[in-house]
């Protein structure tokens, strides 16, 4: 019988669960922490086979493993990451880390077994992984050799890889191909002088998605030392949303700046256009007063007539400006509209009974149409009166053609003339407010109003013209699907 007393003493004193196993696999000694771990009473395991503590599925092979160990005894140290499972008295499996210390005695190789319950460690690892997985930032951990040894769920979602595809691989898998070479150098210098820092001080950095696209990111590097391993934790934030938001903000800013400029331009134009007739009236009335002093009454009467006319036209102009301002927000109810009749009425109002101008109609839609009658009226009136005003006196006939057609949801109307036409340089400014492009221009509001109304209802207007041949305005205008009859 081997003398085990010297072992018994130290085993009993140890706070760590210990067990001494004979060359035949019989449990010779355990301490109380060991018994507690496996839920046995004090000394209850003595003389039991060590296989009692081994999970059923490997219990059969365990003696062979044990014999092999006895033939080639090696120290197996803790922390080799060998995950083993032990079975408690109640049959529960518990994760263990075991170390074996061979002790050569005269009857063979005994084994001193140190068992450490890794359940609490496992739990905190699990918890940590859960926390990292839920983290909004993608996390990837690499070892000294730049091999990936941890990724969280967010990173997998960001890069499109499965965990198994990344673990053990080089971090360069996630680096865009065009910067892999320099990245290598950066990694080397970081590993050499590890301090926590943000990556890419020189500009936006990207990581490479599985599908090859580059994703703009921000990466913080944190060196970590754990259990003798030097690791680097890379915390990666996806910048796509932020960049999109930034871009959106910039676009909006530009739009606002443009609007602001438009507004001050509008204010100057409006104030000028409203002030100009007042200046004229002031000038005329001063003259009238002088003429009154001179008893020049005929001149006074004539000039007062002109003052009245200017005042009346100014009033109309203010109305026109107001209707443009209102047109962007007011909605007009659709009503049953006979477009052909509308056009004919507008024509009569504009040209009067005896006119050189001739109206040609090509109506292919079916009246009545349910649409915004008054809005359509304003548009047609402006386009037709322009067409009449820009007649080419050099031509014998002045002809204005209005065509209509329809789809289920839209009217398509064109107003064309054989007038003097519009120089190409002017086409772009045609629809701007207060833009009077030649002596025949009105107050520079008509086409601006037309455009605003068409924009409001979601239609489109375009113009084509050849100088000397004429101009053609085409627009689309929404209508309700079914016409009332």
């Amino acid at each position, binding site marked *: 019988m081997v003398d085990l007393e010297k072992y018994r003493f130290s085993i009993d004193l140890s706070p760590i669960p210990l067990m001494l196993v004979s060359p035949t696999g019989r449990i010779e000694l355990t301490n109380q922490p060991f018994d507690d771990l496996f839920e046995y009473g004090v000394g209850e395991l003595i003389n039991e086979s060590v296989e009692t503590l081994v999970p059923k599925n490997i219990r059969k092979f365990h003696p062979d493993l044990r014999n092999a160990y006895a033939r080639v005894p090696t120290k197996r140290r803790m922390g080799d990451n060998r995950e083993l499972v032990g079975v408690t008295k109640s049959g529960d499996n518990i994760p263990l880390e075991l170390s074996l210390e061979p002790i050569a005695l005269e009857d063979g190789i005994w084994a001193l077994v140190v068992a450490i319950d890794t359940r609490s460690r496992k739990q905190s690892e699990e918890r940590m992984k859960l926390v990292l997985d839920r983290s909004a930032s993608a996390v990837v951990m690499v070892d000294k050799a730049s091999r990936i040894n941890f990724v969280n769920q967010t990173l997998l979602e960001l890069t499109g890889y499965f965990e198994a595809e990344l673990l053990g691989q080089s971090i360069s898998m996630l680096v865009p191909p065009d910067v892999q070479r320099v990245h290598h150098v950066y990694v080397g210098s970081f590993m050499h002088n590890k301090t926590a820092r943000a990556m890419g001080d020189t500009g936006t950095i990207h990581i490479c998605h599985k599908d090859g696209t580059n994703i703009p990111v921000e990466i913080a590097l944190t060196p970590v030392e754990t259990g003798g391993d030097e690791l680097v934790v890379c915390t990666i934030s996806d910048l796509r949303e932020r960049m999109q938001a930034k871009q959106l903000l910039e676009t909006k800013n530009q739009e606002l700046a443009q609007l602001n400029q438009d507004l001050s331009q509008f204010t*100057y134009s409006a104030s000028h256009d409203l002030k*100009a007739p007042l200046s004229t009236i002031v000038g*005329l009335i001063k003259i009238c007063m002088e003429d009154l002093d001179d008893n020049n009454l005929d001149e006074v009467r004539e000039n007062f007539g002109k003052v009245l006319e200017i005042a009346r036209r100014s009033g109309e102009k203010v109305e026109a400006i107001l209707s443009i301002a209102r047109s962007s927000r007011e909605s007009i109810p659709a009503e049953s509209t006979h477009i052909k009749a509308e056009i004919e009425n507008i024509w009569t109002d504009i040209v009067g009974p005896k006119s050189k101008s001739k109206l040609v109609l090509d109506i292919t839609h079916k009246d009545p149409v349910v649409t915004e009658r008054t809005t359509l009226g304003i548009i047609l009136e402006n386009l037709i009166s322009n067409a009449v005003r820009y007649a080419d006196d050099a031509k014998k006939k002045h002809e204005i053609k209005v065509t209509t057609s329809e789809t289920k949801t839209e009217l398509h109307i064109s107003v064309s003339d054989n007038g003097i036409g519009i120089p190409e340089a002017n086409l772009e400014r045609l629809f701007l407010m207060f833009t009077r492009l030649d002596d*025949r221009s009105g107050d520079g509001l008509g086409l601006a109003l037309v455009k605003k109304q068409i924009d409001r209802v979601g239609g489109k207007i375009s113009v084509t013209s050849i100088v000397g041949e004429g101009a053609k305005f085409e627009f689309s205008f929404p209508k309700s699907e079914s016409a009332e009859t």
Partner: protein
Amino acid sequence: MHMVIVDDNKMDRYVARRVLSKFDDVETVEEAISGNAFLETYYSAPEGSYESGETICVLMDINMPGLNGFETITEMELRVSQRRGPDCVVVMMLTSSSNPEDKEIASGFKSVKGYSPKPLDVVGVQEIIRTYAQHHKESQLRHAS
């Protein structure tokens, strides 16, 4: 002195003419209904053909359809350099524009000597005559030397 009113607004031309008619210094008053019409009448001589002549005083509106006042002056100055019309020209902007930018642009032209608000009144004409006299004298001295 010879005045030319360039303005698309008939009433404004009428008011200006009536006010100008009270001044003996103003010998003739002519009108152009647009920038184009003005250039056509006064600056359409063949290049290099215009001999130095009388000084004209132009009252130029800014806001006109077609060529506006500034575009008209730009073209006029070009044609002065090509000797296609009078080189002695005093331009007074006559406008109801209250836009400070307009005033700034006006001050950038060599031939623009003054800026007068509409409607033209007696004080305005006195100012124009004074400005004109000063520049007329200067240009005569220049020609004499």
